[in-house]
């Protein structure tokens, strides 16, 4: 849901636009599974400005700094934090924890374009629903 909210905000700050795709960087140590995100994306987008958009995920491997080699190395596996070149154990993580929104594919809509309407209707419906509950 945070992805949908974040992307919606970013898009709305760019005016009246349609969102075609959301680009996400996902580290192997982020604790989030790519397949689970892709599976739930369409459901999370329903009734939001992101409905109908695609989620594009760029996976980021775990990269550590090896002091022995004095360089950054990509780990072939997150089960073994050691330099793939010299074998030195290292926990000095450079990247791999990312869960970041990095890009949006958008196009400008003309004012009054029908495509903006479905996005607004459910929001109002939710607000009314909340108000009704409070009124009881």
């Amino acid at each position, binding site marked *: 849901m945070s992805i949908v909210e974040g992307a919606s905000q*970013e898009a709305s700050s760019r005016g009246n636009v349609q969102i075609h795709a959301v680009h996400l960087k996902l580290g192997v140590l982020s604790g989030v599974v790519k397949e689970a995100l892709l599976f739930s994306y369409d459901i999370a987008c329903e009734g939001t400005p992101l409905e109908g958009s695609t989620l594009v995920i760029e996976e980021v491997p775990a990269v550590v700094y090896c002091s022995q080699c004095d360089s950054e190395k990509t780990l072939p596996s997150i089960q073994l*934090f050691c330099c793939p070149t010299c074998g030195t154990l290292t926990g000095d993580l450079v990247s791999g924890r990312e869960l970041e929104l990095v890009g949006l594919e958008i196009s400008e809509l003309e004012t009054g374009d029908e495509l903006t309407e479905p996005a607004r209707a459910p929001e109002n419906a939710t607000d009314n629903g909340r108000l009704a509950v409070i009124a009881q």
Partner: protein
Amino acid sequence: MSTQPRLVEVRQNVLKQNDLLARWLRQRFSDTGVYVISLVSSPGAGKTTLLEKTLTHLKAKGCRVAALVGDLATENDAARLARSEVPVRQIITGTVCHLDADMVQSSLDDWDLNDLDCLFIENVGNLVCPSSYDLGEDLRIVLMSVTEGEDKPLKYPTIFNTADVALITKTDLSEAVEFDLVGARGSIQSVRPGMDVIELSAKTGAGLDEYLEYLLKKIESKTAVARV
């Protein structure tokens, strides 16, 4: 009619809201000199039992402690921890499988942090999702019990990688389950080189002194700085 789609660059951490709140909490804990320790593990690794002993012992040593405890349902853990006669509050998450910074913040509510030296946050028993959520803690402790098998860190590298200390619990059962201690330590170092590891049994008390000393040193280093 819409124009041709174009790609615009944005840079936003998806968990930004949680991270911002966690940063604010960390500052608040720092200003009031409270050392915050979170506990993560799979369900049944012994978080609550160990925490009950920890609270009792630290209180006896004059340390002002309190605890927040997260569960999907029931207030059983809070009731158990309350036996240590320190302030305890249950966070019931409903269907949510982890704690987040907002839950911590709203649970602190009317507690005056100036009256505390140390706050424990016991997370929901889960080795997956809690790894992504910063709670503003100073120290994250991950527990693995000997009954879980020595390759647990290899199966859940992310949570071990985000934790600062690993505790091997229920060591009184080591022999019965033929626990491979060397293998377990190897697994931990493999996913988190240099990680501190303490073995203990909350039941027999073995290793408990070493663990409490370790915590007290950490707590004192922070509360001393805050009071200068």
